[in-house]
């Protein structure tokens, strides 16, 4: 896979510098340790949302830093969780006196590093709540796995949790709300091509021209099963079916339907996929109250898509609609 890149080791720092250069009004950055904070941080008296994870999922998380969403994001190396020192410094930079909620995607590495970071922040006298996002139904949540992975739903947790923090809700309330979003959301993804980690130089797995990988994560990990490439409408069924069953979503549930691109799939295909996904949701009696289509939680240049369904309540809808001003997600202001 060819990339627009200098030294692979420098890619993440260069992208973070580019983000700062492109959005001076929205974000500030530090390179050692590496973090991105909203330009007006710390916002005193308000809870601050901190997230992060391996790089390669852009715009997640750095593109979601700004008013109404994340106060800080800590980008690790590509597909590698950030380290505790990053969260410690970012946390100090954004703490406004009302505590910090760490949004953590459920991967062993992320969990361990954010746990250690929470210990370090508490040692600084900062109250910290960790929220684990584990929405990927492709992974069975059992004693025999590291648990479900955190994927597309992360965006909704950060948007709704960020709006709650902006609205002045307390630490426990914001964390509780984020956990409610996690409890009501499910996702599943498919890959048509693998992606290539820059420093690795070759694809993380190989797919034949007529194959697709069902139930992939967002780190180029292989998925749940390899199947024949199917038409878009069938792919929508293969993704939404398990999602709806898992929660389960039921008739008259009001939902957010989020069709997400993995990075290499163009918008024209995502909208065609959304069309069928909305049709299926309607056929199940779900009321699609809010929608999002685009490449927001990606896996480098991987071709593929994921679908996220979130059961909404009035409070979530109000907070989803609240103003957000970030590099990648913006409305209401």
């Amino acid at each position: 896979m060819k990339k627009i890149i200098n030294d692979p080791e420098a890619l993440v720092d260069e992208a973070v510098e580019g983000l700062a250069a492109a959005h001076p009004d929205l974000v500030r950055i530090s390179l050692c340790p590496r973090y991105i904070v909203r330009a007006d941080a710390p916002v005193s008296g308000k809870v601050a949302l901190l997230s992060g994870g391996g790089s390669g999922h852009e715009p997640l998380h750095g593109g979601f830093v700004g008013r109404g969403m994340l106060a800080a994001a800590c980008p690790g190396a590509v597909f590698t969780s950030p380290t505790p020192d990053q969260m410690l410094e970012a946390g100090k930079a954004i703490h406004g006196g009302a505590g910090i909620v760490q949004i953590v995607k459920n991967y062993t590495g992320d969990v361990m590093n954010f746990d250690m970071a929470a210990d370090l922040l508490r040692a600084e006298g900062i109250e910290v709540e960790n929220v684990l996002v584990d929405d990927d139904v492709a992974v069975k949540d059992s004693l025999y796995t590291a648990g479900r992975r955190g994927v597309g739903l992360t965006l909704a947790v950060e948007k709704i949790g960020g709006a709650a923090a902006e609205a002045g809700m307390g630490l426990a309330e914001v964390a509780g709300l984020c956990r409610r979003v996690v409890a009501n959301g499910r996702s599943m993804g498919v890959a048509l091509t693998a992606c290539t980690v820059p420093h690795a130089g070759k694809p993380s797995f190989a797919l034949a021209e007529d194959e697709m990988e069902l139930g992939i994560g967002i780190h180029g990990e292989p998925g749940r099963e390899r199947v024949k490439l199917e038409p878009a409408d069938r792919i929508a069924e293969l993704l939404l079916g398990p999602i709806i069953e898992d929660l389960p979503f039921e008739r008259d549930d009001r939902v957010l339907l989020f069709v997400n691109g993995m990075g290499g799939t163009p918008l024209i295909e995502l909208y065609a996929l959304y069309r069928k996904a909305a049709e299926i949701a309607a056929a199940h009696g779900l009321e699609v109250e809010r929608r999002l289509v685009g490449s927001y939680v990606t896996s480098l240049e991987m071709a593929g898509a994921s679908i996220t369904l979130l059961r909404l309540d009035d409070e979530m809808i109000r907070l989803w609609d609240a103003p957000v001003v970030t590099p990648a997600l913006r409305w209401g202001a």
Partner: protein
Amino acid sequence: MREALDRDAILAWLALAADRLEAEKANLSELDRPIGDGDHGVNMARGFAAVRAKLAAEQPADPAAVLKAAAMVLLSTVGGASGPLYATLLLQAAGKATGKPSLSTADWADCLAAGLAGIVQRGKAAVGDKTMVDALDPAVRALDARRDQPLAAALAASAEAAREGMAATVPLVARKGRASYLGERSAGHQDPGATSSHLLLQALAETAARS
């Protein structure tokens, strides 16, 4: 042949480990590709290169200080699952080493045992879960059974035990870490972390064998 692990021996070990990890970088990442995310070698090489640089800059006083300094560097440079885990290993080992100018076979057996305990506590992995624990656990037991033997021989035995544990991960189905997402499909691949654990203990054995 060293009789005990003094500060210089620990420094020599970590330096050799950095060399070996740099040399094995591609292979370790390659192991991580089919059952993980293909970055283990890069993570480890990056971390130990930083350890080497750090230790070259400031020369800590004793084994405990060296182990602790290395742990903090790994914590902030490796990331992923292996970063906190190896950092914990060295941190716990440092605790056991505190106050000792040099470590006998028995001392090191206690250090490594403490390190493994720390990893298990943080990672909740049991033997057979297809993780670094599968290489470290037999190494700890081999060492404990040789508490009174000469250092070089004991470390060689523990490295060999790690090698066997590493090889034994191939048929296992992963229950922890990224590989566990694959379920049955994780069988048939050697665990990258178990492999790097063996590499580290092998480097220590060689360090001790050198005069």
